[in-house]
């Protein structure tokens, strides 16, 4: 059995989910922007998939987003901001015939159409797709979320003014 070691170089740059043969890779905690994970396999080649991780991809994205928006006092104390809908589209086949297969994974500058991932290491890589793409659905969700947030904020202002008028 072989152990493929995957090291993320700039792990904090883009939040990623890495899958080997459709199974998620568990990484160590990020330290100095670097984290490491490994996968054990008997196969000679495996499929590597990388996705951008975003909370807006979940089924109840609107509920949690609004919950966090209100808890954080209208986003004032929320450090997580959803701005970009540009996601990683990466799919490659890794040849694991080498001893102690090891790869370093580094994300590039986020821009639609740019190469998303740079892989280095002692493994032969056959890339099928490697690019940043604009996820239309996520873009729509970001837009809907903005409208929802403005609506909630206006509702709050109306309630605040009503409350103040009763106090006066």
């Amino acid at each position, binding site marked *: 059995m072989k152990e493929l070691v995957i090291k993320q170089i700039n792990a*904090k740059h883009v939040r990623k*989910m890495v899958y080997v043969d459709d199974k998620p890779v568990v*990484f160590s*905690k*990020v*330290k100095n922007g670097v*984290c490491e994970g490994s996968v054990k396999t008997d196969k000679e080649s495996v499929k590597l*998939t990388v*996705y*951008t*991780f*975003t*909370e807006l*991809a*979940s*089924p*109840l994205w609107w509920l*949690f987003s609004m919950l*966090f928006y209100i*808890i*954080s*006092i209208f986003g004032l*104390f*929320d*450090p*997580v901001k959803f701005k970009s809908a540009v*996601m990683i*589209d*990466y*799919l490659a086949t890794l040849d694991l015939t080498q001893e102690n297969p090891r790869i370093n994974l580094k994300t590039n500058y986020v821009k639609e159409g740019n190469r998303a991932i740079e892989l280095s290491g002692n493994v032969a890589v056959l890339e*099928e*797709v490697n690019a940043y*793409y604009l*996820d239309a*659905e996520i873009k729509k969700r970001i837009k809907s979320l903005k409208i929802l947030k403005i609506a909630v904020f206006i509702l709050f*202002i109306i309630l*605040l*003014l009503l409350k*103040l*008028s009763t106090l*006066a």
Partner: protein
Amino acid sequence: MKNKKYRPYLADMAPSYLTHLGLILSNLSILFLILTIATFFVVFIPVLYYLIIIAIIPLTIGTVFIVFPNYFSLFTKGTDIINALTPVIEKASPLFLALTAITLVVSTILLLVDKKERHTGRLVYSFSIFAVVLVVLIGIIGGAV
């Protein structure tokens, strides 16, 4: 787009949501800490009062002047209002202290269980402030403060 889109199940998102909540609560604990300090030291109450009065203007996008044409009188009558409010605000200090403690504890737990990232800075802040909060809380319970 050759890959299928990343659409996780809710269960996969749970750790991320908990960390997100931890970060928000950690930030909120700073707000509650400031409010606690402001209510403990009476000198800060006028500062807090004028800050709230000023903050309401952008918060209501200026509409407060339509609803209250004499809103500016709150600035001139500030001293009277502050004198009336001071005992009420002083009574609220244990509440703010308790809120600081709760947000600190919950955020610390949530950030400690995060398996993806270390939050050293926030944890150091949480532990050090919590130690101070605990001493003050014990003081309040013991009737020393």
